């Protein structure tokens, strides 16, 4: 493992607890397990359950032990575990290579791996050292990581409401009271900003990661602009979900970095942040350049740029690294269902 794990998926019988629920109510949590679950939660690592059991029976057992609230999208049923884990991955919209699956049955691990080869698996864990595993120790623990689970839980409610809403999408979106807040990065924001460069893949223009000190230099530089954005709606906040870095030259605003958390993709905020930057550059009487590095996951970002009227003007490194330009003759307007709030430095 080399990447940070974003979600740990637990089997129940003989993994989370000793014993088999169907055979006896007397299952006992493995020693140290409660602490492990809580520490992972505090670190902002999501957790779910994948177990072949009766749903109500197993959830009641978790509830009695005061643990049910820790698990997001719990998958308890009789389908193949590859299907159950596929459900979790789809709901969370994260890569399989950031999921760790723990199950005492080798058969289950093999079955899951055969369908999702990128997932990480463990058959047993040593409760004394498990929390020391590097991939379970995120580089940053920010306000956003500590409340990650609750933000995902808000998301579950949103999705449910959206699925049961029978009206035009526009109407649904406009009753969410969304506010999109764009502000220059402060020193307190830098850990989160750096975390975003590491965690975001799909809506990420370059995949370049920056550490705290580098970002701090850009923040203080007169020839750079570094903005973070936050999205809130009637359910709560999505947290700080987007980041953009531009270098100001004599002729252009040059976007070095543009990224947006995948949780807010369906709200269209990636395009809003881009439109905001284009607006600013236009007011400054300049054109815009943007770096784009192809990865296996960021095609959406490329399409976003192209559909915002960016043209390729230079190709390097066998087509992997692109330079895009926009004369800013057309800037897409913001949708009415989101209020845009711009904070000044």
């Amino acid at each position: 493992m080399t990447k940070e794990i974003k979600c740990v998926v637990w089997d129940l019988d003989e993994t989370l607890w000793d014993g088999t629920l169907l055979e006896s109510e007397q299952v006992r949590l493995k020693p140290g397990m409660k602490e492990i679950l809580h520490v992972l939660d505090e670190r902002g690592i999501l957790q779910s359950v994948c177990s072949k059991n009766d749903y109500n029976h197993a959830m009641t057992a978790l509830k009695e032990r005061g643990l049910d609230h820790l698990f997001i999208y719990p998958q308890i049923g009789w389908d193949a575990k590859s299907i159950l884990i596929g459900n979790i991955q789809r709901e969370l919209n994260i890569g399989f290579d950031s999921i760790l699956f723990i199950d005492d049955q080798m058969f289950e691990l093999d079955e899951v791996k055969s369908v999702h080869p990128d997932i990480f698996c463990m058959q047993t864990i040593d409760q004394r050292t498990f929390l020391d595993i590097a991939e379970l120790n995120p580089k940053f623990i920010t306000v956003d990581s500590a409340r990650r689970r609750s933000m995902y839980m808000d998301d579950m409610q949103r999705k449910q409401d959206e699925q049961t809403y029978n009206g035009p999408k526009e109407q649904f979106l406009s009753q969410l009271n969304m506010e999109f807040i764009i502000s220059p990065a402060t020193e307190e924001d830098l850990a989160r900003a750096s975390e975003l460069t590491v965690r975001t893949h799909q809506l990420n223009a370059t995949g370049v990661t920056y550490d705290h000190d580098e970002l701090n230099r850009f923040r203080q530089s007169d020839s750079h602009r570094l903005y973070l954005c936050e999205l809130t709606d009637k359910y709560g906040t999505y947290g700080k979900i987007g980041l953009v870095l531009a270098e100001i030259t004599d002729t252009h605003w040059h976007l070095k970095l543009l990224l947006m958390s995948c949780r807010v993709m369906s709200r269209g905020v990636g395009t809003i942040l881009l439109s905001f930057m284009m607006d600013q550059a236009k007011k400054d009487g300049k054109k815009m350049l943007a770096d784009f590095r192809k990865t296996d996951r960021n095609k959406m970002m490329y399409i976003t740029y192209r559909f915002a009227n960016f043209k390729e003007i230079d190709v390097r490194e066998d087509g992997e690294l692109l330079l895009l330009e926009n004369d800013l003759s057309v800037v897409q307007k913001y949708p009415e269902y989101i209020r845009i709030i711009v904070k000044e430095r």
Partner: protein
Amino acid sequence: MEHSEPAVLIRGFIGKHLVVFDDDATFTDEDHIFQMGFVNSLFAMEMVGFVEREFGITVEGDDLDIANFSSVRNILRFVEQKRTVM
């Protein structure tokens, strides 16, 4: 308005997925999609996927010009071109 099967499919897709600025907006085949509605990243990605799937073509980097996707008419023309090349 064109009533061929592809035209109906494309209009149907846009009607279902695009968040329009004006609730009562009606579309002609020439209307500029990017001005009538809010084209966000997800819609853009879905639209490219839809065109590839539905018409059996591959949209290359060079094809991702806004002009190819800006109206029902332009999408039809683009699909036609791609198919002739194949």
